[in-house]
């Protein structure tokens, strides 16, 4: 049986009035002004935070104050995955010993890495360069520094381009064909080859092409890859990207192959376009969801090797 507990508060009325003396007083005054100073000892060391008496010798420190920072280096740290109510930050943070530039000792303070997770981030390590984040309203307290934070080493540059595509006359016709469920190409009058999709020219002969040809939505896989990296347009991983030589065309086009386990796809396999439902059609080659096996016998590789 756990024993009964009773909530109880003991609070000093108004708070203790603590005299800080000239050394700590200077440190706190400078903090209120948004600066960090240390004090020099007789041996020449700069103590931050300052002490009134040199911890090495017990002698009084000198009256020389030295501005340090603004940056510092993490010497050691302890990760706080579950901050308590009285902690300076309400998300996971580190207590860190930070040696300000120009100081010979380290200052303990909270370090905010902007992290939410329970594990310390990889970049938190001795040597990390950090700077104080000062509060806008300062009163002369070490809490005038809200926390430390890493120096800026990177920024994110969001980039988005919006533009109008003009496919041109030839591709426009191709997309019009797609919107009617037809696959169109051009025959080159010089080499007699059928190019799908057509671009209005033959890259081999350098001549315009105009003779429109409709090709079948069946074809042959000339070669392919089994992709194990996810793609938003592929049905699953692994997925098969294949070059498909449509019946009646003379160039193979890249497309998805589905409806068969990836490890059963073959060179020379016969396939047919799997169209999306008609109501989903647009002016896009995306009207063909992918290609699926027809079940016909494979085409021997010799018959297609000139298309690879």
């Amino acid at each position, binding site marked *: 049986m756990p024993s009964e507990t009773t909530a109880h508060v003991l609070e000093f009325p108004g708070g203790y009035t603590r005299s800080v003396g000239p050394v700590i007083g200077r440190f706190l005054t400078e903090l209120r002004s948004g600066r960090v100073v240390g004090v020099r000892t007789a041996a020449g060391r700069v103590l931050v935070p300052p002490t009134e008496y040199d911890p090495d010798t017990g002698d009084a420190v000198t009256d020389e104050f030295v501005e340090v920072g603004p940056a510092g280096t993490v010497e050691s740290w302890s990760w706080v995955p579950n901050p308590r109510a009285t902690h300076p930050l309400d998300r996971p943070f580190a207590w860190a010993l930070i040696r300000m530039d120009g100081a010979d000792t380290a200052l303990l303070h909270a370090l905010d890495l902007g992290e939410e997770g329970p594990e310390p981030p990889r970049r938190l390590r001795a040597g990390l360069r950090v700077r104080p984040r000062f509060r806008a309203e300062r009163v002369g307290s070490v809490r005038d520094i809200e926390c430390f934070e890493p120096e800026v*080493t*990177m920024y994110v*540059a969001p*980039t988005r381009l919006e533009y109008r*595509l003009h*496919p041109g006359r030839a*591709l426009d016709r*191709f*997309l019009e064909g797609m919107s009617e469920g037809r696959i169109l190409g051009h025959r*080159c009058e010089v*080499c007699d*080859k*059928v*190019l799908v*999709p057509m671009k209005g020219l*033959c*890259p*081999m002969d350098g001549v315009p092409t105009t003779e429109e040809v409709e090709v079948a939505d069946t074809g042959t896989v*000339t*070669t*392919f*890859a*089994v*992709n*194990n*990296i996810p*793609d*938003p*347009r*592929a049905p699953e991983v*692994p997925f098969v*990207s*294949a*070059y498909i030589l449509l019946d009646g065309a*003379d*160039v193979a*086009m*890249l*497309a*998805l192959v589905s409806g068969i386990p*990836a490890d059963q796809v073959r*060179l020379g396999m016969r396939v047919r376009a799997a169209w999306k439902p008609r109501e989903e059609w*647009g*002016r*896009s*080659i*995306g009207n*063909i969801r992918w290609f699926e096996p027809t079940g016909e016998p494979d085409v021997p*590789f010799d018959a297609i*090797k*000139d298309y*690879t």
Partner: protein
Amino acid sequence: MTERCAVIGVGQTAYKTRRLDVSIAGLVREAALRALEDAGLTWTDIDAVVVGKAPDLFEGVIMPETYLADALGARGKPMMRVHTAGSVGGSTGIVAANLIRSGVHQRVLVVAWEKQSESNATWALTVDRPYSASLVVGAGGYFAPHIRAYMQRSNAPDHIGTLVAVKDRENALKNPYAHLKIPGISREMVEMTPMLWEPLRYLETCPSSDGACAMVLASEDAARSAPNPPAWVHGTAMRSEPIVFAGRDTVSPRAGIDCAADVYAQAGITDPRAELDCAEVYVPFSWYEPMWLENLGFCAEGEGWKLTENGATALTGDIPWNPSGGVLSSNPIGASGLIRFAEAALQVRGMAGEYQVDGARRALGHAYGGGAQFFAMWIVGSDRP
């Protein structure tokens, strides 16, 4: 082109997954300073700057050459950018060489880079358009089907790609700048890694790297005062072809065959395997070694995999390919072609350190890009042509 051209300085950054400590400007500066140091020159000695990188969409910095003029000491000097997709490093070197060979300039700084950690090349390579089936498969997804076609056409055994993956990573262990260093790399280790784009396994593909490469090219006059041995340019060639046309051979593209024939003719080479001492060839996926061995005329069609299998292309073989570790070990895309050209130069200068091919006097540098449709090649030698 009547003037001779020499490589008198080479500078590289270490190639790493992320160079978070430097901006793009800081990255190119690092390589350029090392090239100047090798050449014994300072910024004021440079007449013109030529830069190259992969498409702007990669890092999303549009026309980075304008922002990099200061970092490359180009204020008040001619500066230009070359742009031929993945082959750009090679093309950039050739444009710079032509500025010397035409007699226009005496000393040209050439720099190429990529900072892949700021970007996503797979996305940038496969932007969505309504005209064609667009799959986010990246370069590996593009090239894997052509590799499968090669395997079928050549009847090569399945393990050839693994041999290349191991060989190039073994070489990389000797290269202080290489990105992928895998001690004890073995066939078993490669074969244990998953298929990304079957038939390509994870360790049969190139890494994504941050890095830059620079060279100082000089005229014959300017090369006389160089502190280190020069590499002389014996020939340069570029070719391109459309990505789709009827009858295109995507396994052994015509443009690559023609480009090689051109550069060999300029250098007086009729048998590249016998007359070259080594080659730095753009092999971003393991199987491209046997494919390019055939395309570049190092053997007959269908025989490339046999050279790989019998060790001819190893550092100890008769025609070492990618002694530096190649693209399979370091791939800052835009720089990768220039690195091939620079590594070829280091070999004939006798400055390749632990991966030096003994007595190398003539070497090929090669780059390709796009859908294996842009090619750039040079041959460099230790003798003045």
